[in-house]
């Protein structure tokens, strides 16, 4: 566990979220708080609603009931790009990169919102816009150094191995300088060494940039190691919320994972 670290006030609060697709309830009355500077892990069996929860937080899904309060502003609906503009960045379960573009270009897209010039003007004037681009390029280079992906700057990401793609995706999210970073299975499909690297990056991001992180992960070893708090979902309901140790001993959680009959 990282050494001295002060968890701050609530950054994001989801209150009574219910999300249904037709008759299928993906999430039922879920309330979760994410506090500044913490690493929150969301775990649960397949189909528990973990990814749906992230999708609600960054605006891909609009819940039927419930509200989300982010940095003090409450809303029930938000568009994904508004979420991005307010400081929520994310990665995806099955890597959503721009495969035809280079690593560098992919990461640069993360800077789009930080570019002050209006898009229409950027297309026309490219003297000042170019100067601005250089400043952003410098920032991106820092992230590239941080994540140790210097060697693949100019490689189209479609050609990269999976583990590196995941890293580029993280880099793109970091380029947005998010306050809240949502990671959907950042270590899926990685070997032990890659997982260790990814753990280190997540802890470093949390530590050095003070970024709040909410992540979904199946590797319990990883979850117990890096998270400050764990939320457990099962069948779209929250069944536990607490420190890794408390959650590990929770009977409901054990039942959910071992598959005790529901009913």
């Amino acid at each position, binding site marked *: 566990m990282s050494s001295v670290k002060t968890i701050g006030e609530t950054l994001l609060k989801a209150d009574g979220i219910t999300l249904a697709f037709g008759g299928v309830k993906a999430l039922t009355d879920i309330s979760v708080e994410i506090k500044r500077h913490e690493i929150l892990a969301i775990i649960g069996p397949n189909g528990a609603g973990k990814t749906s929860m992230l999708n609600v937080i960054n605006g891909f899904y609009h819940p039927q009931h419930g509200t989300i309060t982010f940095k003090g502003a409450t809303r029930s609906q938000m568009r994904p790009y508004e979420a991005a503009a307010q400081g929520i960045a994310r990665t995806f379960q099955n890597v*959503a*990169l721009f495969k*035809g573009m280079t690593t560098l270009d992919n990461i640069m*897209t993360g800077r*789009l*919102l930080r570019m002050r010039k209006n898009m229409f003007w950027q297309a026309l004037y490219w003297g000042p816009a170019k100067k601005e681009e250089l400043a952003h390029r410098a920032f991106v280079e820092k992230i590239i150094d941080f994540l140790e992906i210097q060697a693949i700057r100019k490689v189209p990401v479609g050609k990269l191995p999976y583990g590196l793609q995941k890293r580029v995706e993280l880099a793109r999210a970091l380029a*947005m300088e998010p306050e809240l970073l949502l990671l959907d299975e950042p270590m899926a499909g990685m070997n032990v060494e890659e997982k260790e690297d990814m753990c280190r990056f997540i802890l470093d991001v949390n530590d050095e940039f003070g970024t709040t992180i909410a992540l979904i992960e199946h590797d319990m070893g990883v979850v117990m190691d890096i998270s400050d708090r764990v939320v457990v979902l099962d069948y779209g309901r929250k069944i536990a919320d607490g420190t890794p140790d408390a959650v590990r001993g929770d009977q409901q959680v054990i039942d959910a994972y071992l598959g005790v009959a529901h009913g």
Partner: protein
Amino acid sequence: MEFLEAVFVTPFASIADNPEFLLEVIIGGLLTGVMYSLVALGFVLIYKASGVFNFAQGVMVLFAALTFVGLINLGMPVWLAFLATIAVMVALAFVIERVVLRPLVNQEPIILFMATIGITFFLNGFGQLVWGSDIKVLDIGIPKEPIIIGGILINEFDLVAAAVAGVLVAGLAVFFQKTTVGRALRAVADDHQAALSVGIPLKTIWVIVWSVAGIVGLVTGIMWGSNLGVQFSLSLIALKALPVLILGGFTSIPGAIVGGLIVGAGEKVAEVFWGPAFGGAIEDWFAYMLALVFLLFRPQGLFGERIIERV
């Protein structure tokens, strides 16, 4: 025997007899090819930026040209009519985004493709409803005199068309490769959801790209309309763009240009020298044959980024 001779002997003999004539035919063909490139360009723009094959591009050309001529006939000066038509095409982009594209975010490309077929029917009817279906003459004073350069006969109009296309292409290439908006456009083409998550406003991007495609359509419509008159068949030149796209690749702006040039020059040369062997009129189908050959051996086109799997 006679047929084989007409295919393999006679054309080469006549080329050897008069090589300057071959050059003249090729140059004439290249200049026509530029016009094909213009049409193909509109397709490439939208395909690059949204992964959608826009079936409506041809009818957008027609609609832009109809509006332009209509406004001129109402007594507007040419420059004002040009600006007003641009405004109309931008407005059209807004409407298409709002009514057609936005409800279909994250749908399969084939569904968006079907939607563009719908746009085709709508624009076709709407254009004729507003502007009528007569053939209209468009003359904005582009010179059409044949001139002779170095012993070769060239149509001045073709030269102007080539210059216009050149400027458009250079501008678009810079726009796509060098600007931030260009990068955002490429990002959207690659993955809608990922683009949304980094905060690219999809609707702004779509409006921009459909506006640009509309403006390219207007330029195309003006050039073709000055040549052939503004009429319904203008929307059919879109079909000529298909072989151009297959040759050049759906995602490449330079590809659209080179593809257009190859198709233009190829079909003229084929018509003039090989036409007699086939009883003439091979200009009409030569491009499609060429495209078929390309599909067999290089389905991603000359400059395509990857195999076309979406259309």
